[in-house]
């Protein structure tokens, strides 16, 4: 559990990036943090594992204040995957990259091998096991960064823009995996601009603007509120755009995902036919 009480954060240049943010993240929560560029999203999540310490206010991870412990101690429980994989990767091969944290956390040899094989397979990277991460494409490097964190199975996973550079298939796999983590009561927090991904995943959405939280609610409510989204420089997901326009037909306006869109239209057609 992570509790954040009224935190402020200023960078050295005196720009206040967070202006009083409070949030409680319970074990098993699945949260998407959205908002325009420069809203403070990345600054905010860096407080979850003590990478940044608030200028004022308190962040507690499982009851412990982040100012009173080290990033290393927090790392075992909170896995971070950054926006830009190049800031995270440093090993000579994809395999070494994944092994690194596992070794640091003291896993035995057999477990390490098992976890590496699993992570490589899961993220479709097995063929690159002995390849340098820097020879891979942008999307593949992002998956290496993800693999190296998933391998040690942290209780909380923080993902900064996990879908950047990922194709449709990889996004679907990521979605399924997040659902799987949910069933194990793991916590997942992701920062993302990918409205289409969010619409299919259906998380709780925290909307940030100008260093503050401006909305907190379920995807169905937030992603169909065009005024709120526009103020945060976000566009409605395509399905919501369609249903907003279909209002005159008496169809519900708060449809955001594909399956529901299909059933809603088909049952309307059937009803009209009768």
């Amino acid at each position, binding site marked *: 559990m992570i509790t954040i009480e009224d935190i402020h954060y200023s960078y050295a240049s005196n720009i206040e990036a967070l202006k009083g943010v409070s949030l409680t993240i319970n074990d098993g929560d699945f949260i998407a943090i959205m908002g325009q560029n420069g809203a403070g999203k990345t600054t905010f999540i860096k407080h979850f594992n003590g990478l940044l310490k608030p200028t004022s206010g308190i962040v507690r991870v499982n009851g412990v204040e982040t100012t009173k412990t080290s990033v290393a101690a927090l790392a075992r429980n909170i896995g971070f995957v950054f926006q830009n994989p190049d800031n995270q990767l440093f090993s000579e091969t994809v395999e070494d990259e994944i092994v690194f944290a596992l070794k640091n956390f003291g896993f035995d040899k057999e477990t390490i091998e098992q976890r590496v094989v699993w992570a490589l397979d899961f993220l479709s990277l097995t063929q690159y096991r002995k390849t340098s991460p820097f020879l891979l494409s942008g999307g593949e490097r992002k998956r290496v960064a993800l693999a190296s964190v998933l391998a040690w199975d942290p209780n909380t996973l923080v993902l900064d823009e996990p879908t950047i550079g990922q194709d449709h298939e990889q996004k679907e796999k990521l979605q399924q995996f997040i659902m799987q983590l949910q069933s194990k009561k793991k916590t997942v927090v992701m920062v993302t601009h990918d409205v289409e991904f969010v619409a299919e995943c259906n998380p709780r959405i925290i909307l940030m603007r100008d260093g503050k939280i401006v909305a907190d609610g379920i995807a169905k409510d937030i992603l169909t509120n065009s005024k709120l989204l526009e103020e945060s420089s976000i566009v409605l*997901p395509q399905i919501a755009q369609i249903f907003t326009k279909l209002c005159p037909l008496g169809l519900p306006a708060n449809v955001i995902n594909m399956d529901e869109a299909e059933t809603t239209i088909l049952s309307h057609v059937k009803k009209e036919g009768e």
Partner: protein
Amino acid sequence: MTIIKISDLVYTYPGASKPSIDGLSLNIEKGEFVLITGPSGCGKTSLCRTFNGLIPHFYQGVLKGQIIVAGQDVTDKQTFEMAKHVGLVFQNPENQLFALSVEKDVAFGLENLGMPRAEMRKRVDWALNLAGIYDLRERSPHEVSGGQQQRVAIASVLAMQPEIIVLDEPTSFLDPLSAERIFEVIYKLNQEQGITVVLVEHRLDLTAKYTNHLVVMDKGKICFEGNPRDILCNEEISRIGVGIPKATLLYKRLKAAGFDVNMQTPLSSDELAEQLLKVLDV
């Protein structure tokens, strides 16, 4: 007029065991807006790197086949010579920015061309405004956000007003509305000034509507090429892992379930919603 002509291209990075581009031919006409898509690792970025000679001059490796861009054989010309014709916006903006201020980054290419100061001032302001970063001009490009860095990279290329602009997932770090605005700016430059645009994107939801020349790559080859309305209704496309726009997918699923919306394959939510209103309104 064909402005990019690639014939039987095979390219292997140094130290790689198999080619990243594996027998690819592509013709792009002057003034086209071409969209390239395909699964992660299919060779899209490598292909972009051949347009201005980064492949093979910078990346080395083994190249077979021919690349003619703006009448120049890329393998014979230095990258800086190609830069007059082709502007490239990379996937990762940090790799592209180096100057002390946003403004200097945008001016860099023009300084190299020896453009007079007054003219340069005008051009830089124009590009900063188009990219929506005029207010950031005195900031360091390394202290602005990832999304803002992408705008700086785009402005730097726009300022050069090249004949061809190649953009490799140029808005991946941008919020959706900003991304849409950038795509609109690029589309406008294409329509009004005839600049040839080659855009690499996974997110066809945002971009399919701008093109009538879609290129789908897989495993270093082109597997589909043509009008997106024809290509996106092909079943093979989903198997390759191309993300079909939600509006197109909903149209296909309704059709499969026995409800034909009765229109050409839609590429945007507006197109589908409009037709649904007509068909469903009794």
